[in-house]
Structures are given as structure tokens and as C-alpha cells.
């Protein structure tokens, strides 16, 4: 944008889309804020009234809130560790020349195209089911007691399901980053006497750092709001063992019909997501520059 004239024109041209996006965001946010200060229960319509911070007090003092917080962080953290770690490993494997490379790559990317509800149901009924599931069959084949994953380790099971969905995304981004690594650099390192491990830690990992950053950022945004997988598998249970913040807000609004309390929870979730975002940007801003 060289001249002032061009700058003004540019602002004018982008303004419709900016205004539309702003409205799209501001209206629901304003309504949620409004509801969060109301006593608003669907079971007693027509009784809405302003009640100040009471909704927030109730939501924050609910023991389920802290469990949900913990579960949210465990879910995000666990999936990030598995997808980034597994993604690097898979990307390294897929980068090797091999027979049927194209087909294998498509197969690896396939889980990303399956909608969350479907993949969660497939995992629930075909793999983790203690009677008919594949894992149960394996356990019985070696004479062990089948594990009822969703009852015994609900959060871990959900982490596993979500990781399976997000692994292709991480693999894809890391693979493309890996392919842009200069082969002469690798050869130079080889001449310099670097072994496979040294080449990985000193060349490949630093080269991938930017791509890893992108994966963490994008995944975090989506993982903070995981919902469908929980709804179709554990319904947040047993107890609150697999309830995350999103699911807690849902149950407040649509199981207990407390729209006011759920709105307060929603606002708290927005604030928490922003705190996470600030930390991430701080941490990551350096590598992105």
C-alpha cells in the first residue's frame, strides 16, 4: 500500500467483510453476555430477571467445573502429545521412498475425512466394546479379561479417539515441511559425521519447529471445543470423569435447562480460551516471527 489514497481504498474494500464477520461474532457474544446475568430457566418461562453475578458464582463453585477444567486440559494436552509425536514419526516413515507411496499416503490421511460422531461410534462399538469389540477379542484370544475402555478409562479412551482423528492432520503438515528440507544440508551433515539421531535432533527437528507450532496452534483451537466424541460415547461420564468444559456448558443448558448458568459457563470458557491463546502466542510467536 504505497499511497494514502490506496490505503483508504483498501480499507473501504475490506470493510464489508470485516463488518459482516464482526456482526457474526458480536451478536451471539452479546446475547450470551446478556443471558449470563439473567435468571433464565427453560422450565420456568416468563420468570427471567436480572440477578447480577449469581450465575457465575454457581458455575465456578460447582465441583464439576474444576473436574471439567482438568479434563479439558488433559484432553488437549494428551491429544497434542500423541498427534505431534506420532505425526513426526509417521511423516518420517512416509517420507521414505517405498512401494505404493501414493496409496499409503491417502490411507493415512483418510481418518481426517470421517465426521467425529461416526468415528467415535465406530471406536465405541467396533473396537472398545467389551463384548463385541476388536480389543476385547484380542484380550480374550490371549486369555485376558477384556477391558471396558469407556467405563474404566473414559478420558483416556476419548483422548485416543480424538488423537486418531487429528493424527492425519499433523502428519500431513509435518510431511510437507519435511519434504522442504534441503537434501544438501542432510548430505553436509552426513559428511560432518552426524549419525541418524544427530541429524534428527540438529537438523530435522529445528526445521520442523515452525510446522509443529502451526499444528499445536490449530489443534488447540479445535480441541478446546471437543464435544461430539464425548456425547456419543460416554455422555461425559461415568460421573464427571470425561466431561470437559464444552460438555459441561451443554449439560447445563440442555440437560438442566439453565440457560443463564450455561451462558455464564460459556463466557468463562471464552475467557479461558483467550488465556490459553495468549500463552500460546507468546510461546510460539518467537518461532513464527
Amino acid at each position, binding site marked *: 500500500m504505497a499511497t494514502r489514497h490506496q490505503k483508504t481504498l483498501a480499507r473501504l474494500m475490506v470493510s464489508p467483510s470485516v463488518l459482516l464477520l464482526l456482526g457474526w461474532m458480536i451478536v451471539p457474544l452479546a446475547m450470551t453476555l446478556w443471558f449470563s446475568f439473567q435468571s433464565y430457566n427453560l422450565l420456568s418461562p416468563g420468570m427471567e430477571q436480572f440477578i447480577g453475578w449469581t450465575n457465575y458464582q454457581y458455575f465456578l463453585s460447582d465441583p464439576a467445573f474444576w473436574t471439567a477444567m482438568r479434563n479439558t486440559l488433559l484432553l488437549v494436552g494428551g491429544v497434542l502429545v500423541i498427534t505431534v509425536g506420532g505425526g513426526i514419526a509417521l511423516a518420517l516413515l512416509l517420507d521414505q521412498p517405498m512401494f505404493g507411496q501414493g496409496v499409503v499416503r491417502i490411507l493415512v490421511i483418510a481418518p481426517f475425512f470421517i465426521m467425529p460422531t461416526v468415528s467415535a461410534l465406530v471406536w465405541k462399538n467396533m473396537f472398545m466394546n467389551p463384548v463385541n469389540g476388536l480389543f476385547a477379542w484380542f484380550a480374550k484370544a490371549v486369555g485376558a479379561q477384556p477391558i471396558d475402555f469407556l467405563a474404566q478409562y473414559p478420558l483416556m479412551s476419548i483422548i485416543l479417539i480424538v488423537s486418531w482423528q487429528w493424527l492425519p492432520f499433523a502428519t500431513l503438515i509435518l510431511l510437507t515441511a519435511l519434504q522442504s528440507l*534441503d537434501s*544438501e*544440508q542432510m*548430505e*553436509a*551433515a*552426513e*559428511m*560432518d*559425521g*552426524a*549419525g541418524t539421531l*544427530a541429524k534428527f535432533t*540438529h*537438523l530435522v527437528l*529445528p*526445521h520442523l*519447529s515452525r510446522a509443529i507450532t502451526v499444528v499445536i496452534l490449530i489443534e488447540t483451537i479445535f480441541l478446546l471445543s471437543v464435544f461430539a466424541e464425548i456425547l456419543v460415547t460416554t455422555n461425559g461420564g461415568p460421573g464427571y470423569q470425561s466431561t470437559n468444559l464444552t460438555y459441561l456448558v451443554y449439560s447445563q443448558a440442555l440437560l438442566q435447562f439453565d440457560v443463564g448458568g450455561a451462558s455464564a459457563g460459556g463466557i468463562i470458557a471464552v475467557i479461558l480460551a483467550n488465556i490459553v491463546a495468549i500463552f500460546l502466542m507468546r510461546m510460539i510467536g518467537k518461532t513464527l516471527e
Partner: protein
Amino acid sequence: MGSITLEQVCKSFGEVEVIPGVDLQIEDGEFVVFVGPSGCGKSTLLRLIAGLEDVTSGRIVIDGQDVTVAPPSRRKLAMVFQSYALYPHMSVRKNIAFPLKMAGLSADEQERRVQHAAGILNLTDYLDRRPGQLSGGQRQRVAIGRAIVREPSAFLFDEPLSNLDAALRVNMRVEISELHKKLATTMIYVTHDQVEAMTMADKIVVLRAGRIEQVGSPLELYRRPANRFVAGFIGSPNMNFLEGEAAARLGAHAIGVRPEHFRLSMSEGAFAGRVGVAEHLGSDTFLHVDLDDGTHVVARAEGEFPASHGDRIHLTPQDGRLYRFDQNGSAL
């Protein structure tokens, strides 16, 4: 020490035979230049010596040790790549120290050697910068620094100057030559530029299609080219070739005369023609002449020669500076 011997080294990529069989002896401390047109296999030959490619058959011996199947790191060679291949996320200091770190040297020893190399290459002020913050010539020096800290038995250069601009290329050419005098280590240098080959080499290896056409000192190749290909490749501007009647008179299929070996006259000479383009450089004058039989030749006159477009001119080859070639291009 760094003597390198190649015995019947062959390399094929699948069906394609890139190097059909090369024998070469490189003495310790020599500056050897592999030169040839692009695609002649000179880089492949260098990579075979470095160990970055496996030989299909034959033997590579370095300092009396058979290293044909040894990995690159065991061959005690250092290589400077065309793209420099610096590690972009490391400072200059860390780049240069990387091979030492891999060799497990102590931090003090690493620092001492890095300082020494930086001193030789005038890099002391840039040690804390990243490669991205350096100019082309400085990056080139870092790549050389990374090679010399290991104190290898031989250096391999893969067209190291081709990414630099013309002025810098001349400077770096001199610097590399001086470095060779200072270190007295064997160097193998790959280039397609015959000027680099002529100015730097102790020994030039001219390659074509994976075969060695001729090996010799720069002036040997200039004075006694073994065949028409070498004659045309060495020397700038290229040698002029005349075929037909003029050659038959001397009992050859073709004769060759270098531009600088013509005597020019406006009145009489062996060949006559019309000047096409006259390039007046002050120190030299290059005349592009269309001879009467249709052959296009280039002649060089020292100093300022008063000829311009359209002038008739007569050329006579100097005595003893005329090369004769047979049907197959071999020198007679």
C-alpha cells in the same frame, strides 16, 4: 595426507550408465579440477569420492585404505556444496563447530579451532550471526570454514562459486587458491567454467559423458590437447576449427587455431574474410570474422586494432600453433 586413487570406478543409475569406468590418480596436496560441460558426470564422480553415492563397481582408495563401501564420515573428507548447505537455524559459530561437536571434541578445543578457522577466513566479526544475515561470499566462507576445522585429508568443492556474482567469483577464486597454498591439502574442485579450471588447477581432468578425455596441467592441455573436444573446451574464446580444403591441404580432417594465434593483416594472409562484429576492449580486440568459405572464426588482436564492421581482413596462423585432427577428432 590425502592421495586418492580411483580404479575402474563405474556408476549406473538403473539402466543409465553415467560413468562407464574411470581410472584416476590424485597425489597428496594437489589441486585437481574436474571440468566438463553440464551433465558430463563430474559432480557424480565427486559424490562417489565423497561417499554420497555408492559405486556400481570399481575401487576407491584414500591414503592406501580401500574406502569403496565406507560411509562419508569415515573417509576424512570435507565437502563444500554448491548451495553451501549451511544449517539455517545455527549461528556461524555453531555451523563451523558442528563437525567438531559430532566428533565429540571438548568445548575448549571446539572454540579454539573455530577461532582459528574464522581468523583464516576473516569471519571473526560474524561468528554470532545466522547464515540468513550473511552475503553470498560470507556464506561461502562459512561453508569453507566448516570444512577446514575438521582438518580433513582432502577437500571436495562442488561448483562452489556458481551462485556468486562475477566480481565476487574472481575474489573467491583467488581466496581458494591462497587457501590451498596455505593448507597444502589435496583439493578436488568441480566446475564447468574453464577459466576457473585454468587459473586454479595443478591438474585438470576434462570429462565428457562420464569418460576422462585428458588429464594434465593447465598449460599442457592448452598446448597439447589430445582431441578436438579438449581443444575446443580449454581456452577462451574457444578454438576455431576449419574443415574442408584448408584442412585437406595439411593432411587433416580438421585444423584448429586459437583466436590469439592468428596474425592479422589488412592486405595479405592465408585466409581472407569480412569482419562481422568487432569488440574493442582496449587491452584486446576480438574480431568475429566470416571467412570466404563460410566458416565463422574469432580472432584476437592485442591492444587496439583498427578494424570495424564490414572490413576485409586476412588471417594467418602463427607457426607451430596450428592443431590437426583426424576424422574421429583425435589430435595428429
